[in-house]
């Protein structure tokens, strides 16, 4: 499969401020790339460069094989929901979508049909003829998502689409985002602060910190990369628990060992530092003490742990 969005060493600077530095990554068709980073990490600037709003100071990128030197062509094949997008005061949802359809060169009839279909997809059919100013924030975000789809884009850029939404609104927007990739086959770049949703929704993750790529890969790769397991669960025979406790306490890299509550034979081991080597050292200590190991589970690292470790946030 070839990359639909590909960036090579993109740099964006404003006077003396470098907002994005050496941004390189690739996303394939149908993937959802979660773009994470603390405030000011360069997420919005990166999206604005990739959507041709800003010109890169250095480096190159392409969207669906269209090089960044042809921004007008890129704009035809992408959909964008900018951060804090505004909406016109005097248009209904249906008029809003029709207007944008016309900007993409659709005939009046075609733009009207697309608007009707997108309103249905966004769950806004009943409010399609109401002024956008009467919409709730969640409805506006869904309308914004619908607007990003009027040209049936190959790539959709969403900058903080769930910002300021209540949990129900977030779920509705994220369900639409999932549909973009699964049903439309679009590639999605999703900038967000919702780590749990990224873990659930995204196929790949890009973590930005101070304008640079701190990590990139699948969710599990990134989670392992920066927040390798710091604890494990070990199961031994109930009569050998004391021997196991003694061996593990003396093992290199083990910080604490204790019995798991209500689970006979299970021990929880916390390592002094992250890394799979600590797990190996614990297993070696048990083997040397001649304690048979019935089960050994490294505790799964979470994306949020990786994020905090890589960005120094929190």
């Amino acid at each position, binding site marked *: 499969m070839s990359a639909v969005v590909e960036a090579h060493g993109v740099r964006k600077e404003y006077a003396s401020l470098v907002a994005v530095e050496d941004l390189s990554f690739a996303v394939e068709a149908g993937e959802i790339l979660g773009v994470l980073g603390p405030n000011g990490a360069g997420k919005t600037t990166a999206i604005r460069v990739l959507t041709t709003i800003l010109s890169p100071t250095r480096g190159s990128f392409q969207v669906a094989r269209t090089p960044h030197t042809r921004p007008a062509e890129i704009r035809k094949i992408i959909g964008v929901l900018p951060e804090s997008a505004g909406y016109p005061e005097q248009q209904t949802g249906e008029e809003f979508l029709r207007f944008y359809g016309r900007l993409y060169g659709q005939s009046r009839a075609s733009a009207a049909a697309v608007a009707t279909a997108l309103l249905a997809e966004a769950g806004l059919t009943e409010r399609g003829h109401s002024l956008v100013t009467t919409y709730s924030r969640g409805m506006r975000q869904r309308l914004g998502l619908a*607007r990003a789809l009027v040209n049936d884009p190959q790539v959709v850029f969403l900058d903080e689409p769930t910002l300021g939404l209540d949990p129900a609104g977030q779920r509705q927007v994220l369900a639409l985002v999932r549909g973009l990739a699964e049903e439309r086959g679009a590639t999605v770049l999703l900038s967000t602060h919702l780590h749990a949703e990224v873990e659930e929704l995204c196929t790949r993750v890009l973590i930005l910190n101070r304008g640079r790529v701190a990590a990139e890969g699948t969710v599990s790769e990134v989670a392992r990369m920066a927040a390798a397991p710091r604890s494990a669960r070990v199961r031994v025979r109930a009569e050998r628990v004391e021997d196991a406790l003694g061996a593990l306490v003396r093992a290199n890299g083990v910080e604490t060992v204790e019995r798991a509550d209500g689970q006979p034979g299970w021990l929880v081991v916390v390592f002094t530092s992250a890394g799979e080597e600590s797990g190996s050292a614990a297993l070696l200590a048990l083997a040397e003490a001649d304690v048979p190991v019935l089960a050994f589970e490294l505790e799964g690292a979470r994306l949020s742990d990786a994020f905090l470790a890589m960005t120094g946030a929190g």
Partner: protein
Amino acid sequence: MIVAGQELRDHWLGGRALGLTLALSLLLSVVSYLVATNQALNYLEQRESVNLTLQVAVAVGALLALLAAADTISGERERGTLESLLVTPISRQQLVAGKLAAALSLWIGAFAVTVPYVWYLGRGIGVVSEALAAGLVVGTLVAVFLASLGVLISSVSRSNRVSLSVSLLLLLVLFAPTQFPTSAQQGWLGDFLLRVNPLTAGEHYIGKIVVDSHAWSHDASWLLSPVLGAAVFAAAAIAAARSISLHGGSRS
């Protein structure tokens, strides 16, 4: 065309342009009533009454176009709708051209409202058609000049308030020579200031046609600055559209 159509709907169906045009209509009613009936003002010769009404209409109509233009880009910027427009396939120049055309519709509306007043004040002396033609030509040139100036200011302004304030300040500066004492308007410097300013030159030209009954070609040199002002500033507004940025200032 699509941008212009949407802007026209926003201006006229949204009610703002209609309200401003109605206000102009009230102003023209008062002016017409005074010049036609007031003992202190009705000494004006009939042609001068027509001229005064046209001058007011051109000045206010151009002002309305300027106000609408000053909101074009900075307004989108302030409402957070500019980025969504900039990521569509239409070029920045098309965007500005559409908005400029829609802003000029306020002048067209103002002129349409002026027609019955000019007809009423100028009836019976054979000046109506020439006055309206001169008003349309000069008013359109001045409106294009001012609206283009407004778009230029709006393109680089970080807020709508700044755009409107700067536009109005410049308009006052352009109108200032009309308030100079007569002696200051004479001599080569006074003549130069009147001619170089599209607003004063245009109004002077209307006066020559309507009051002095001069032929259009007789004082055509007075049309030079309105024509140049309209052409140069419209071209500059379209050219500067390439540099429109999300936050104002130059494009980064």
